[in-house]
């Protein structure tokens, strides 16, 4: 399958001043209606069909020549483990162990494909849903749970795995990633940076500014947009009327849409984009066209705003299923691989469950810590007052 990121749709949008474009006729005034943005029928980089068939790509096959059947099984394992971990977290939330959980269900290929495309010395700036990327970076999954349990606001050292903290304010991490990448370039390092964000986030001014800065400074950053079709209850049409990958062109760098449920294609495209960055060719936008199969978070009730059939139609494109079909049909992967993996993933679930339950509440004095690196007189004063106040209870004074 071929890709042409500045594809025919973009061409069709060329300004044709004197003629009226069919796509924007009068009726559009009231409501632009279902646009190309969410159709998913755009030219899409795909190496593995939903039916588990490998398709050739003149442009991208070369980025996955090293992906042996073993490597495919590894990717499969990553996706299964990510999904299992995610499911455990959802359960833990239902059981009251976590306050909230944003599930990655359905986005495993987008996350594992891109996460595995990164090199150790690359740096990752996630949103709050990149559990699969965290997995690929080697972050202990239990570390991700602290903030959703409410024991901290970010429970890992970003520099251990070059995996930044989750960022909740939509879009702001794209600027951090760009700045980090500017620093990488200054250092003359040949590593790259990848910034994750969502279809909803694409509307934030910060994301646009990150495109501008990265283009102007030719920063080695890949903007990885997981278009999972929804920003809570809003479909992508509420954010854009053309496919999101096209956004990049107007800022002077390439954008590509990849089948976000095809782990191999995501791996290939992200590798290509990261290599561009490392080679000094600047930013790239990758739009991984995928689907959020679950609720926005455990607080959300998607039945309020989307039809069951939509979800059902995406089940046929399940990222794990399609690789499994391929492995079963085209490789000599035996049944034991799958059963062993099931067992392994169950072990992960158990470990996570136990770790969460054992996770202690933070000491109350922790709220005064780390507000400042060099200290602050008012914090010191308030800490002391608070300690004295607490002590008054211990002393039985109150």
């Amino acid at each position, binding site marked *: 399958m071929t890709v042409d990121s500045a594809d025919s749709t973009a061409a069709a949008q060329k300004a044709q001043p004197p003629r009226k474009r069919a796509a924007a006729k009068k009726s559009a005034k*009231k*409501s632009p209606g279902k646009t190309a943005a969410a159709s998913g029928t755009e030219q899409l980089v795909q190496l593995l069909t939903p039916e588990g068939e490998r398709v050739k790509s003149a442009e991208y096959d070369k980025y996955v020549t090293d992906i042996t059947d073993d490597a495919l099984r590894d990717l499969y394992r990553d996706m299964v483990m990510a999904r299992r971990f995610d499911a455990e977290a959802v359960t833990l939330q239902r059981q009251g162990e976590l*306050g*909230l959980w944003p599930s990655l269900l359905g986005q495993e290929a987008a996350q594992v494909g891109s996460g595995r495309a990164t090199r150790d010395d690359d740096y990752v700036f996630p949103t709050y849903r990149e559990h699969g990327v965290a997995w690929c970076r080697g972050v202990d999954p239990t570390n991700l749970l*602290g*903030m*959703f*349990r*409410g*024991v*901290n*606001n970010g429970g890992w050292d970003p520099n251990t795995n070059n995996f930044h903290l989750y960022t*909740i*304010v*939509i879009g702001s991490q794209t600027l951090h990633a760009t700045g980090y990448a500017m620093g990488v370039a200054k250092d003359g390092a040949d590593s790259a940076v990848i910034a994750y964000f969502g279809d*909803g*986030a694409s*509307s*934030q*001014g*910060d994301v646009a500014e990150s495109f501008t800065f990265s283009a102007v400074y030719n920063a080695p950053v890949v903007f990885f947009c997981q278009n999972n079709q929804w*920003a*809570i*209850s*809003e479909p992508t049409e*509420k*954010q854009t009327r053309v496919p999101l990958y096209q956004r990049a062109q107007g800022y002077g760098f390439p954008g590509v849409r990849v089948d976000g449920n095809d782990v191999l294609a995501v791996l290939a495209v992200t590798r290509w984009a990261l290599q561009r960055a490392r080679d000094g060719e600047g930013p790239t936008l990758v739009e991984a066209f995928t689907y959020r199969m679950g609720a926005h978070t455990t*607080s*959300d009730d998607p039945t*309020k*705003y989307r039809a069951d059939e939509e979800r059902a139609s995406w089940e046929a494109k399940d990222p794990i299923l399609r690789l499994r079909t391929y492995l079963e049909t085209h490789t000599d992967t035996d049944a034991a691989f799958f059963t062993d993996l099931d067992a392994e993933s169950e072990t992960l679930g158990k470990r996570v469950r136990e770790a969460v339950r054992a996770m202690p*509440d*933070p000491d*109350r004095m*922790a*709220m*005064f810590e780390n*507000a400042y690196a060099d200290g*602050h007189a*008012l*914090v010191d004063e*308030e800490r002391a007052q*608070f300690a004295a*106040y607490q002590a*008054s209870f211990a002393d039985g004074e*109150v």
Partner: protein
Amino acid sequence: MAVQKLPIAKAINESLRTALDNDPKVLVMGEDVGKLGGVFRVTDGLQKDFGEDRVIDTPLAESGIVGTAIGLALRGYRPVVEIQFDGFVFPAYDQIVTQLAKMHARALGKVKVPVVVRIPYGGGIGAVEHHSESPEALFAHVAGLKVVTPSNSSDAYWMLQQAIQSDDPVIFFEPKRRYWDKGEVDTDAVPGDLHKAVVAKEGTDLTLVAYGPMVKVCLEAAAAAQEEGKSLEVLDLRSISPMDFDAVQKSVEKTRRLVVVHEAPVFLGSGAELAARITERCFYHLEAPVLRVGGYHAPYPPARLEDEYLPGLDRVLDAVDRSLAY
């Protein structure tokens, strides 16, 4: 319908419904306010009844939401904008502070920008970062804005009506942890002044001033103190800009003691202004310095610590005791 018992969230919903009904220029805008009815269901059913043209799901961009609301207001609309959570108002801060707040003055009064910005605020719901903050002082310091916050269903209904009718921009802070607290709403009542404080409970020994979510805590504290023979007066401030200094002064002239309670950090919080102003007005009346109970000068803590961070009954009573000890 006249008198109904409604949770605050539903009272706001009813108030929006009334406003949409009464004035075709009223619009409701924000992220997820339409089909979903808002993440707190505050706008539930409104899009269904008033259509997508009046209850508008916007792109995910707060500056855009407020900026376009300003433009709509210039065109004669009265947009009621929802910011999903307190911590997400900051991308819109520039539009609010440099444009919304100043446009009427910039135009020498020739244009009006009657935009209401609804912000669910405050903690106590066990949420993740950015979902529990109380940034009201950051708006109240800015001239050109009005800042109000109801503490009960009746005020939620009526203060929102008044905010929407106001020709000034109003930042309307909603005490999200009280959304499900029920109270009576009389939709035929004649509401009081939007910017006047009310005495929520009378008392003689000390004045507690609170607003929004902390009014309940202060009423509980007053009840507890009562048992110990202390008579606390509780004032619900309701309006943070302007502040009803007269009402607080009147109460303090009687009780001679003042404790201000809010969730926002104490340092440069609204309690600072109350303390400064009331001390100036009541210098010879005060038996004790104005004491303040509020958040600490640290980022809002993770949920498991918020009970320690937020002013609760004990911390309020501790301040009361300290004040009475003077």
